[in-house]
C-alpha cells in the first residue's frame, strides 16, 4: 500500500466563517448538540458511568460467589444482578462506547466536518440515557431475572414489570444503535475528503464499516424477537410460549442471529483501535493493510452465519450443529490474520511502552486466549460439555473484557490528548494497566477450570468443592473494581489540569492529528489533503510532506 500522491487538483475549501479556534462551552456538552465530537464525548462519558454501574453489579455477584451458600442476596435478586450486569455491560457500555469512539473519530479521520446526519446522530445518543434509566429503574421495581438472553418461557414467568422494562429498554438502545450504524456507514462512504480512496482510510474506519453493516442487518432481528416476546408477555400471545403452542427455540434463533454478531459489534471497533494504536507507538507501518481491512469484512460476513453455535445443546438437529461448527471455526482465520498482522507490525519496531500501547499489547495477550477458547467452543462435542458453564463465562469475558474493554482503554489513552487537549498522567496509566491486567486474569482464568470441572453458570449456590477457585475469582474482581480508581482520577484530573497537548503528541499520520487539540468546532480550518498513507512510518518523505500540509493550510488561511 503506497499512496503518497499529492493531490494538487482539489483546491482548499472555503474557510468557515467562525473564529478558527472556536470551542464549545462546558454546558453545551449537556445539551442536544449535533457536533459529532460533543456526541462522541457524551457517548463515552455516559457509557463509562454505566460501566461503573455494571461493574458494581459484577462486584456484588462475585461477593455472593465468595462462598458456596447463597447468603448475600435473595436468589431473585441474584438473578436480577446477573441479568442487569450482562445487559448494562453490553447495551449501555461496550456498544455505546464503540459508538462514542466512532462518533468522535470517523469524521476527523476522513477529513469531514461532521457526520452525514448530525441531528439523527444526536437523537441516537439521547436514546441511551432513557434506555439506561429504564433498566436501573427495573432493578428497584422488579428486576428482570431471565438473564441477558431472556429465554422464554422463563422470561415470561419472572414478572411482567421487570421483563417489560427490560424489553422496552433494549428496543430503545437497539434503535439508537441502528441510527448510529446508518450514520457511520453513510459518513464513511460519502463524506471522505476527495483525495481519500477506500484503501487510504485508517483501519478504524474499515472496522466501523464492517460493524455498521452488522448493526443494520442484525439489530432489526433482535427488535423483532423482543417485540414478539413483549406480545407473549403482555398480550398473552404464544409466539414463543409453549403452553400456547409456541416454539421457544425460534426465539433463540432470532435472539442469537443478532447476539452473536453483537460480539463483533462490540469487538470489531476495538480491532480497529488496535490497528491504529500499534503502528503509531511502534513507529512502523501496519503489516498487511489490506488483509486487516478485508478481514474485518470477512468477520462481519461470517459473523452472520454462526449464531446457532449458542444452541448446540438446544433443540437443534445434527446437520445444523455441524454446519454452525464449521462456519464458527472459520472465523478464527480472519481473526488470526489480524493478530499475526499486529505482531508483525511490532516486530522490528520502536515500541514505546506508554499507557495506550500497554493496553493495546494487553489486548493482544488476553484476547488471543478468548479467541482460542472460542475455537474450542465451536467444536460441538466439546461445547456439549461446557455450554452454559463457567468455561463460557471465562471465554466471553476474555473476548469482551480482554478484547473490548482493553481496547476502549487503549483508545481513551491514545486519543485523550485529541479529545481534551491535555495529556493523561503516565504513571497513573501504568498503575491502571497493571491492576487491570492482573485483576482480569485473576478473575477470569480460574473460571475455565471451574466450567470444565462441572460448575454451571448463573448460580448463586454451588458445590463447595469449587470454593477455592471462586474465591480467587472474587479477589480478582475486587482488584478490577479498585483498578478503575486510578483511571477515574487520572481522566478527571488530567481533563482539568493535565499538561497541555500539542496538535500531534504521538507524531501520528492519520488526519485527526493534523488539526488542533481539541479540534475546533468544524474540525479543520481548511479541509486536509492526503499526502501520506495513514501508516507510512519510516518512509523518509513523511516528515516533509506533513510539513507541506501544514504550510499549505496556514498559507491559504
Amino acid at each position: 500500500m503506497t499512496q503518497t500522491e499529492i493531490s494538487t487538483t482539489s483546491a482548499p475549501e472555503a474557510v468557515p466563517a467562525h473564529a478558527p479556534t472556536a470551542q464549545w462551552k462546558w454546558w453545551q456538552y449537556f445539551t442536544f448538540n449535533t457536533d459529532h465530537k460533543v456526541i462522541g464525548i457524551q457517548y463515552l462519558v455516559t457509557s463509562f458511568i454505566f460501566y461503573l454501574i455494571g461493574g458494581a453489579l459484577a462486584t456484588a455477584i462475585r461477593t455472593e460467589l465468595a462462598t458456596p451458600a447463597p447468603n448475600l442476596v435473595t436468589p431473585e435478586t441474584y438473578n436480577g444482578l446477573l441479568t442487569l450486569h450482562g445487559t448494562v455491560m453490553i447495551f449501555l457500555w461496550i456498544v455505546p462506547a464503540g459508538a462514542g469512539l466512532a462518533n468522535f473519530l470517523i469524521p476527523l479521520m476522513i477529513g469531514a466536518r461532521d457526520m452525514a446526519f448530525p441531528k439523527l446522530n444526536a437523537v441516537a445518543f439521547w436514546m441511551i440515557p432513557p434506555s439506561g434509566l429504564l433498566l436501573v429503574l427495573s432493578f428497584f421495581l422488579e428486576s428482570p431475572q431471565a438473564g441477558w438472553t431472556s429465554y422464554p418461557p422463563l422470561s415470561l414467568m419472572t414478572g411482567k414489570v421487570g421483563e417489560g422494562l427490560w424489553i422496552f429498554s433494549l428496543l430503545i438502545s437497539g434503535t439508537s444503535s441502528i441510527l448510529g450504524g446508518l450514520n457511520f456507514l453513510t459518513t464513511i462512504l460519502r463524506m471522505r475528503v476527495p483525495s481519500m480512496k477506500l484503501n487510504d482510510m485508517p483501519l478504524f474506519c474499515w472496522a466501523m464499516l464492517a460493524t455498521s453493516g452488522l448493526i443494520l442487518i442484525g439489530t432489526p432481528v433482535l427488535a423483532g424477537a423482543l417485540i414478539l416476546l413483549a406480545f407473549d408477555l403482555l398480550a398473552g400471545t404464544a409466539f414463543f410460549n409453549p403452553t400456547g403452542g409456541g416454539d421457544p427455540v425460534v426465539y433463540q434463533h432470532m435472539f442469537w442471529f443478532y447476539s452473536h454478531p453483537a460480539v463483533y459489534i462490540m469487538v470489531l471497533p476495538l480491532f480497529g483501535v488496535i490497528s491504529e494504536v500499534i503502528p503509531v507507538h511502534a513507529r512502523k507501518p501496519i503489516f498487511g493493510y489490506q488483509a486487516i481491512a478485508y478481514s474485518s469484512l470477512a468477520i462481519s460476513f461470517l459473523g452472520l452465519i454462526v449464531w446457532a453455535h449458542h444452541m448446540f445443546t438446544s433443540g437443534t438437529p445434527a446437520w445444523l450443529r455441524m454446519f454452525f461448527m464449521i462456519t464458527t471455526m472459520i472465523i478464527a482465520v480472519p481473526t488470526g490474520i489480524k493478530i499475526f498482522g499486529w505482531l508483525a507490525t511490532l516486530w522490528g519496531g520502536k515500541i514505546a511502552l506508554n499507557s495506550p500501547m500497554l493496553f493495546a499489547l494487553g489486548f493482544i495477550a488476553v484476547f488471543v486466549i478468548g479467541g482460542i477458547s472460542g475455537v474450542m467452543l465451536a467444536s460441538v462435542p466439546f461445547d456439549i460439555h461446557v455450554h452454559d458453564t463457567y468455561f463460557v463465562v471465562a471465554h466471553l469475558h476474555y473476548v469482551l473484557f480482554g478484547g473490548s474493554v482493553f481496547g476502549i482503554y487503549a483508545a481513551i489513552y491514545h486519543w485523550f490528548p485529541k479529545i481534551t487537549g491535555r495529556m493523561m498522567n503516565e504513571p497513573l496509566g501504568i498503575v491502571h494497566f497493571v491492576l487491570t491486567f492482573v485483576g482480569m486474569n485473576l478473575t477470569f482464568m480460574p473460571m475455565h477450570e471451574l466450567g470444565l470441572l462441572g460448575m454451571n453458570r448463573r448460580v448463586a449456590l454451588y458445590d463447595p468443592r469449587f470454593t477455592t477457585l471462586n474465591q480467587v475469582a472474587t479477589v480478582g474482581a475486587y482488584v478490577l473494581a479498585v483498578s478503575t480508581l486510578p483511571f477515574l482520577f487520572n481522566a478527571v484530573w488530567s481533563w482539568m489540569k493535565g499538561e497541555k497537548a500539542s496538535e500531534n503528541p504521538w507524531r501520528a499520520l492519520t488526519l485527526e492529528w493534523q488539526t488542533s487539540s481539541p479540534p475546533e468546532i468544524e474540525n479543520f480550518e481548511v479541509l486536509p489533503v492526503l499526502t501520506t498513507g495513514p501508516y507510512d512510518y519510516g518512509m523518509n518523505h513523511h516528515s516533509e510532506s506533513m510539513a507541506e500540509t501544514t504550510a499549505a493550510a496556514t498559507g491559504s488561511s
Partner: protein
Amino acid sequence: MNIPSQILTLLAGIALTLISLWYGQNHGLMPVQASDDAVAVDGLFNAMMTVSMGIFLLVQGVLIFSIFKFRRRAGDETDGPPIEGNVLLEIVWTAIPVVIVLVISVYSFDVYKSMGGFDPEASDDPGLVQVAMMPDSESNAAFNTASDTASAPLINAPRHHHHHSVALGIGASPETANKPADVTVNVLGMQYAWIFSYPESGITSGELHIPVDKDVKLTLKAQDVIHAFWLPEFRLKQDTIPGQDSELRFVPRRVGDYPIVCAELCGAYHGGMVSRLYVQTQEDYDQWVQSQVALKDSQESAKTSTVASLDAIADPTPNMGDRATTSPDPIRQQISQKFGIDDSLLNQVQPATPTTATPTTATPATATPTTAPLSAMHS
C-alpha cells in the same frame, strides 16, 4: 559465545512443541471419565489443548520478545523499517489456521458420530414437521380449554403426537444403533428438581440409578421452563425444552455416583436444581429397583402416610401437594440429605414452586406439578 539466531529459533520451536504436547496430556482440567463418550471428548479436548498451547506460547512469546528486543530507547525518535507486508508470510498464516480448523472440524465430526450425534432418531429436525402442522392444529382457544383439566399431560402432549420417534440430542452410537436400549429412563425437568421414572418397573425417583456397562437411554422432557440436563463426568448435556422431546443415550463405564446439574437458567433456585446419578453393578441396580417397587406397592396400599420412610422422597411427586400443609419438615430434611441442598434454602424453594408462575403461565400444569408430569411420563 555467539549462537546463530536460526538455532535459537529452532530451539524455541522445539521447546514450544514439547511444552504443548506435554500440557495437552497433563492439564488435569477435566473430571473423571465415566463413559466412552467422555474418553472420546477428552481426546478431542487434549488435541485442541495441544494446538491451543502452541498458539498461546507463540503469540505471547513473540509479544514478550518484541517488548524487550524492540523497545524504543530513550532519545530515539526514529521510525522502524517501513515494511508494509509480506505476501508469502500472510499466505502462510492464513493457510495454517485454515488447516488447523479443518482438522479440528473433522475430528469433532468423528467424535460426534461416535457419541451417537447422527442417530437419525435423535438428529432429524422436527421443526419441519412442526411448522407444517401449526396452522390447522392446536388453536390457542382449544388449548386453553384443554388446560383447564389438570389431569391432561398439558405441556408435552399436544406438540408431540405428530412425531413420536424424533427426539433431538445424542442418540445411539454406531455400535448400538438399531438396537433397543438396555435401560430406558424418562427424565422430567421441573423447577427445581429432576424426576426420573422407569417405564419397565413403573417406579419414580428423585435420583437416577443405572447399571454399569449397559446401553442407557434417557428421554428428556421439561415441565415448565427450559432446563439443561448435564452429566459432567459423562461430558453429556442436553436442554429439556417444554413441548419438545430430547434424548441422551450412553453407556456408563464406571461404577460410582456423579452429580446431575441443571445448566440452563431456570429461575431463582436454578443453582439448587441438582441430583445424583448412581452407576451401579447389575446386582446393586436390580436390588435398588426391587426396593423401589416394594416401596411403591407399600405406599399404594397405605396412601395416608406420606412421610413414612426416608425413601419416600424417592417418589416425591405424589407428596408434592401435601408438603406445604402436612408436616413438611421431615420431608425437607430428607430432601436436603438426598439432594445435598441447604435446608434453609429449601424453606424458600418449596413455597416458591407453585407461586413463581405468573397468571398467564400458571396453568394447572404448573400449579399442580404432581399429576400432569406423571401421566405424561407413564403414557
